[in-house]
């Protein structure tokens, strides 16, 4: 089977991640180049330059890419959207498919199950999901207070918010390129049509419908 050249992107956490990988017909993805910058406030500034940097480092032209893989969250909305719209536009610009991946799945792939994965959801909450010994997601993704996350059968925790869950903490903290691609390796190899690129927000927008009009004069 032919190998597949893949660009992997994730901005669902403070890590702005771009990786270039070769997915062989058999075996794990091979990382050719990677840029990871942990900066909560500069996702939009860093991402496209990082994409160009990994392409340049690996000596690969954008036009040679076969697919883009993108973390679809859950994650803080503004940063998450930067990665998703970048992936969507870059792939559209090249006429190649973009495959979404639950960002927590990418973390779980690089940890050893059974594991809980948790990342920072701000507002003293975490995004979390639970994976069995085989690495399959069995619960989640959800957003909750750390105290409200059931351990289930998990014996370890991974992800940047793992320390809040009271289990032994293992790597990684953030979704990495290898994990992202590994999660959708089968569909990439088959050339299967990707799932819809839908962000995992898990929260509604904060917006309140206005109540009765406020009077400016006393009634």
């Amino acid at each position, binding site marked *: 089977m032919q190998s597949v050249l893949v660009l992997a992107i994730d901005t669902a956490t403070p890590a702005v991640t771009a990786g270039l990988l070769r997915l062989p017909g058999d075996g794990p993805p091979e990382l050719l180049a990677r840029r990871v910058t942990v900066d909560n406030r500069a996702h939009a500034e860093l991402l496209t*330059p990082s994409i*160009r940097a990994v392409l340049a480092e690996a000596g690969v032209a954008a036009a040679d890419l076969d697919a883009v893989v993108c973390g679809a969250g859950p994650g803080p909305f503004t940063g998450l959207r930067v990665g998703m719209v970048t992936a969507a536009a870059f792939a559209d610009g090249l006429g190649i498919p973009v495959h979404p991946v639950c960002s927590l799945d990418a973390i779980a792939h690089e940890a050893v199950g059974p594991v809980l994965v948790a990342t920072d959801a701000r507002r003293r909450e975490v995004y979390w999901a639970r994976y069995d010994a085989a690495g399959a997601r069995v619960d989640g993704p959800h957003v909750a207070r750390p105290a409200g996350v059931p351990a289930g059968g998990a014996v370890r925790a991974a992800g940047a918010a793992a320390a809040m869950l009271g289990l032994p903490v293992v790597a990684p903290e953030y979704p990495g390129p290898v994990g992202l691609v590994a999660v959708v390796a089968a569909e990439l190899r088959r050339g299967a049509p990707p799932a819809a690129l839908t962000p995992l927000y898990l929260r509604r927008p904060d917006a309140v419908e206005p109540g009765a009009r406020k009077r400016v004069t006393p009634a």
Partner: protein
Amino acid sequence: MSAGRGRGIDARPAGQGRGIDARPAGQGRGIDTAVVLGIETSCDETGVGIVALAADGAVTLLADEIASSVDDHARFGGVVPEVASRAHLQAMVPAVRRALRTAGVAASDVDAVAVTAGPGLAGALLVGVAAAKAYAAAWDVPLYGVNHLAAHVAVDTVEHGPLPPALALLVSGGHSSLLQVSSVAEPMDPVGATIDDAAGEAFDKVARLLGLGFPGGPYIDNAARAGDAGSVWFPRGLTGPRDARYDFSFAGLKTAVARHVEALEREGTPVPIADVAAAFQEAVADVLTAKALRAAADRGIETLLIGGGVAANSRLRALAERRCAAAGVRLRVPRPRLCTDNGAMVAALGAHLLHAGAVPSDLGIPAEPALAVTTPLV
């Protein structure tokens, strides 16, 4: 060093299967024309426009696609930034595809990508900026991160040709500015601005007060057609002898309308919605045109350009026409579709920058929610 800074259409391999229809032959674009795609996401409209730039600098509109999330905001009575940002993400790629199809342009024919870098809603701007960078990188063409207000000015050239030095009155739900324009794509000189609400915001609030829909502009305009603008006198903000000559204030006007409506309600008198709408609209149009023409006279400027969503207001247009004619000032107002936020205006400004030989933006530029009018290009 950025390999993608060249206008390297030739660098892209042919037959890449981007799945966009090729441009029909015989469309008459000369070999020395350039195609610029513009992306606008500063508020609630996802706009993608495409223009052709001729060798002589003339800019022609090829496509102007809009996906609006306005209906999602109506029940909130104003634009909700997170709702707008979510809608931009969903609408972006489909809007680009539609624009290319409408323009009859292949993706490989796009020579530059322009995008609104600011001012606007931070989270909304980011979606467009990120998308524009990605398209520019994928196509290996230059990026221009442009000023939204300068784009409102630039779009007029698509309809009315080259713009002489002018005073620009830009009025919408997000901005109310008087700007002196020496030339499109050059820094603009701020002359006046609102000190409180934007003009369009006042329309939204008064519409809500009168039980009309959102956004308020078109509803007020419609209701006012059957009304008597002289039935009530509403105050003209900042028009006293000691007030700032060119600044605007609409908060007091909005409160005056509310007081008037509440007084009628207290008396049990039905509110004459058409009359109140007409009188309110008259007050806004009066103060906007009076201050614009005052600034034009003070500065010896012979052309007034009006843009922004409020420029679609029929009373503002009529009053501006009358007063400009009386003052010997040429009035330029793009058609309503080009006055409201759109991608064509961004593409137009990008084309003028390209023509002027401006240095393209770095792919590391941020979105700039508070971008100053003196910065046409980030």
